[in-house]
């Protein structure tokens, strides 16, 4: 087996692991496990970028790999966990519909995005073939995570997963965005988490709960 073949297989494995983390986030009940899977997704993203960087000899991607690893894998989950502890919402995550049907919808989304991305796949190079389908599916699943959860914290994690999926698709399909964009997005996300933290406290101060249904009620 030559190195290109090994790389192709490794990227296949990481794509399926990425899909697995998306489904795991969709299936989690507990806040702690939810954040652990989220952190695992960030670490996976970092190692995928490092792998693509190695295969294409681009030093910029190494930087974005390190950024993904430390920001998305360690710092942001840690900050969110701190916020969750401070707010005392580290209990079960409530879902709108039951978990099994949520995951079934997730599986249907994967099929859907596969069919949507069939025409795209024919035009791109071999190593990243089909990874676009997985990336699109993960984007849709992240939206599903945001739709099916009631609490603000899980919605934010859903949003960050969405960003992760986009980053994953960009890295795998086009070998990364320009370094300026990557750094900009990474710090945007970090700042977003900090601002969301402030929002959490505001929401709780106003409604005594993080349940987003309160936001819909008219005063």
């Amino acid at each position: 087996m030559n190195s290109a073949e090994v790389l192709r297989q490794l990227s296949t494995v990481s794509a399926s692991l990425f899909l697995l983390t998306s489904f795991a986030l969709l299936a989690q009940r507990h806040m702690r496990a939810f954040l652990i899977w989220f952190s695992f997704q960030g670490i996976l993203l970092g190692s995928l970028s490092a792998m693509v960087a190695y295969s294409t000899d681009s030093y910029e991607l190494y930087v974005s790999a390190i950024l993904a690893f430390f920001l998305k894998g360690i710092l942001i989950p840690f900050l969110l966990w701190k916020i969750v502890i401070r707010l005392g919402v580290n209990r079960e995550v409530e879902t709108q519909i039951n978990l099994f049907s949520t995951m079934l919808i997730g599986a249907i989304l994967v099929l859907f995005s596969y069919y949507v991305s069939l025409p795209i796949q024919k035009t791109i190079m071999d190593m990243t073939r089909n990874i676009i389908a997985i990336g699109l599916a993960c984007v849709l699943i992240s939206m599903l995570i945001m739709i099916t959860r009631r609490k603000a914290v899980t919605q934010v994690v859903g949003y960050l997963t969405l960003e992760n999926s986009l980053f994953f698709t960009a890295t795998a399909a086009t070998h990364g965005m320009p370094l300026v964009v990557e750094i900009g997005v990474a710090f945007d996300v970090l700042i977003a988490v900090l601002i969301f933290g402030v929002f959490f406290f505001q929401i709780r101060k106003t409604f005594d709960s993080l349940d987003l249904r309160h936001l819909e009620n008219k005063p």
Partner: protein
Amino acid sequence: MNPWFLNFLEALLLIGIAPLVSTVLKNFKAVLQNRQGPGLLQSYRDLFKMFSKEPVLPHGVSWIFRLAPYTVFAATALACAIVPTILIQAPLSAAADVITLVGLFALARFFTALGAMDTGTAFGGMGASREMTFAALAEPAMLMGVFVLSLTAESTNLSTMMHIMLKGNLGLKPSLAFALTCLILIAIAETGRIPVDNPSTHLELTMVHEAMILEYSGRYLALIEWAKQMKLVLFATLLINLFAPWGIAEEISSNALIISLGTWIVKLLILLLILAILETSMAKMRIFRLPEYLGLAFLVAILGMLTHYILEPPL
């Protein structure tokens, strides 16, 4: 040596070793929990004791109650003959594929439930209804898990699947990892091990399998217990030989057969140790969480199928 004779010996080996395997598992658990385990021959002694006792039948049971243990035992014993254990091309496994295997398990389960309902007691009915509810979820999941493997091997025949796993230059296939996860989850559920059902309890509210066989005694109970032990060995062998078949004998020679037997025993011991660690570190699940657990197994299998189609184009 005649392959039919070897196949027969293989089935006898599985049937004969089953009580020993369950005792070994109990011993592993005992060591992990700082207890003293039972002697290695304890299961055989239990079976001997039950066989030599006179069975007591509840009032008003029909012939189905007496037929059920024999059917359960026969179906499981036949399943033992189908699964290739130490020889990859056994004649009977060429005759029956993995769907037959699932069918045989379903037959055994059907008769256990019938025998349980025949007594008309509340426990029998409750156990049977629970068992059938979980079976309706577990069987499709098991079939889906096996089908992921079949897609790779392009066959549902167990010997062919093992052969492809052994010889085919597969590389890293994530779909196989999903299939393995699914089948481990299902094997735990089907053999009634800890997160799903506690094999060593008679606690009324939680039991599934024990509730169904509550009214059996004597040789009937012995047959059912033995069949249950055989099921554990069968699932272990299936997992070992489908996902790690290295060392299995491909031709009939005494050398290959001995190596195959040795590696099989080592792999079985490793799997039992993993199972013992899992059972010790986990608590039993709430019974209403079980459909979710089985649904998870089903979804993992579906994910395996999706990754097979999306990420693993035929080379």
